[in-house]
């Protein structure tokens, strides 16, 4: 085992523990905080793959913006663990079905990934996650989807400002 492998296993274990804590925490605020730690662990994996840009954008967008909004909303509605009403059987049933479908989806994903078993990941040396190759790929090969999604984001932002002006 070299240093990279040790880091990889440590990060993976950390991510899994945090992900489990997201699920079993009673308090929704604690769940969100654990989820933030999961995102940090995933960013660590990106750095191992030498994808610095992806790692930092993952932190900025998910941990820095979206999770702040999550915290914000949960703090505002102030969910107490005692006052949470008992779920009806119907709701529980829907939860079971949704969870089961997601499990099926995950299994099919794992199955599709079977050809990758035994292959090694180019740790620390790939360049696709660095900013120059990524920018070249986005603006040459994928320029149309990229521009369309930017227009989508811009319209969302303008819409937010417009709603705020009312």
């Amino acid at each position, binding site marked *: *085992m070299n*240093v990279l492998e040790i880091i990889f296993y440590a990060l993976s274990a950390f991510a899994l523990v945090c992900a489990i804590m997201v699920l079993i925490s009673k308090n929704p605020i604690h769940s969100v905080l654990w989820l*933030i730690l999961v995102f940090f662990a995933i960013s660590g994996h990106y750095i191992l793959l030498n994808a*610095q840009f992806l790692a*930092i954008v993952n*932190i900025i967008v998910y941990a*820095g913006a979206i999770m702040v909004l999550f*915290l*914000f909303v949960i703090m505002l509605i102030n969910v107490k663990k005692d006052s949470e009403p008992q779920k009806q059987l119907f709701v529980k049933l829907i939860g079971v079905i949704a969870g089961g479908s997601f499990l099926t989806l995950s299994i099919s994903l794992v199955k599709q990934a079977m050809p990758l078993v035994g292959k090694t990941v180019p740790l620390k040396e790939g360049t696709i996650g660095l900013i120059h190759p990524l920018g070249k790929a986005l603006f040459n090969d994928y320029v149309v989807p990229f521009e369309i999604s930017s227009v989508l984001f811009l319209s969302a932002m303008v819409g937010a400002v417009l709603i705020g*002006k009312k």
Partner: protein
Amino acid sequence: MTLLAFDWAFIIEKLILIAIIVLTTLLITLYTTFGERKVAAILQDRPGPNRAGPFGLLQPLADGLKLIMKEEIIPNASSRWLFIIGPGLAMTASLMTCAVIPWGTAIHLFGRTIELQVADVNIGILYIFAVVSMGVYGIMIGGWASNNKFSLMSALRAASQAISYEIAMGLALIALLMTTGTLSLKTIVEDQTAGHWWNIVYQPLGFVIFFICAMAECNRTPFDLPEAENELNFGYHQEYSSMKLGFYLFAEYVNMIMSSAIMASMYFGGYDLPFFDETTVAPNIAAMIGLGTLLIKIVLFVFLFMWIRWTIPRFRYDQLMNLGWKKMIPLALFNMLLTGALILSKL
């Protein structure tokens, strides 16, 4: 042993560098609090702290000692762990920024070339942006864990303020990146030293936007709505006492110093001393001159922060949001368009 086969001297060098930078930052922070009180005193025409030591120079030590000696109170109704983590997180986030700031050119010691920068990552500016967006967690967690209405209100204010101004800040940064063409802070500073103009010449509007947003991100007056005493008692750190309170207060000053360092590096040439050719002196001396220049620029910016704080009254909350969303963001977008048009016309 293959397990630990990496350059130990490199690790030790970086650890020493980190220790020096963090300790120096904390020391400067101590005296920034003193400076703040003195500047406030001068602007309000009173002597200010002058009892402890000559000219009151020992005042920050006395303040620190007082904070440490105070009784540590953790409210019964608080979430204990989060209450403790909050101030630590605020402090860590503000200190982490210094990892990518280039403090000077390389120095030569013991036959090694030591870069005066902890990590020259090729996404330096984005790293700063990520750390800044982490900074709000310290306030939010602390404010929520205190289990106090005023603290929670203040934490929510801090969060919404930080998110709103981050957007304009990012857009101002994009315009700067369009002119520099790199995200590495070291390269940005080097480009400004090598006979070019400082970036402020190319991005005056971008700098103004960035400065205002930095002030908002640091929760400084006129943007210190999270600490508005007259409506929120004391703000998000109301339930805190002893050094935990000290950490929150300190983190604000560290943030101020770090944002000054970033602005100096990005818009004002970093460690570049104008009208002086660094190649004419020995590299170690040049590095020291550069370090001194950067520190002077930081002090000037910090003074500007203080000057504004003691001159301009606080915004109302809706005014703050209006400024952020309806003025800063359109202005930053316009700045981006203008920069793009100028770059295109030059081609």
